[in-house]
């Protein structure tokens, strides 16, 4: 699969995840989000940045449980629960948000 943005061809895997994380930029994030029917707001960008931080720290895309715990640790209890993340990235926050953030698909996600 490929994503065409302003004359660039971005390689995607069969599930629509970026193959090369270096390709990622905000425009690509907006495009992938639109395909998921999500309009990115500052609340979304905060979680996207958090996911990328998680990936840098652990070299791993988080499953839901780990994403919730990490959000709680970094952004506090108000945001660190599944409903908050589910509202931002329905229907499967870890999977959808990882895709928008340019990370590989979480392998341990149901």
């Amino acid at each position: 699969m490929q994503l065409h943005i302003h004359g660039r061809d971005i390689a995607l895997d069969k599930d629509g995840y970026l193959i090369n994380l270096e390709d990622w930029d905000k425009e690509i994030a907006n495009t992938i989000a639109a395909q998921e029917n999500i309009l990115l707001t500052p609340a979304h960008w905060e979680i996207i940045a958090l996911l990328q931080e998680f990936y840098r720290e652990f070299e791993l895309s988080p499953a839901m449980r780990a994403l919730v715990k990490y959000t709680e640790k970094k952004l506090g209890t108000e945001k660190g629960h599944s409903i908050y993340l589910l509202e931002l990235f329905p229907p499967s926050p870890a999977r959808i948000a990882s895709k928008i953030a340019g990370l590989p698909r979480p392998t341990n996600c149901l």
Partner: protein
Amino acid sequence: MSKKILLISRQAPYGKSTAREAIDIALAASVYDQDIGILFMDDGVFQLLKNQQSNQIDQKNIASILPALALYGIENIYAHQESLNARAIRADELILDNLQLLNNKDVGSLLNQQDHLLSF
């Protein structure tokens, strides 16, 4: 019903994929809310060393991934003291501050508390 499952990781990192497979199984099993522990013994304790730079051989860093286990609800992480001693590894050379060090006898009783043992 939640079962007590212990993963026993006894191979050094990187030379084979066994070490990474144990971690992947732990992460996957955590989704099912099982009571999971991991024991590092024999050459498996080499996975716990600080200063691993696995990007030198184009592999993901085991020492980076292991601290994520706590975020997956896996709190029981053990290392076999005699295996550390045999390799002259000191406690301050290890990643993970919640690591529990067990001697031979402790490992024996840990094994006998489990519903399932998985060897890697």
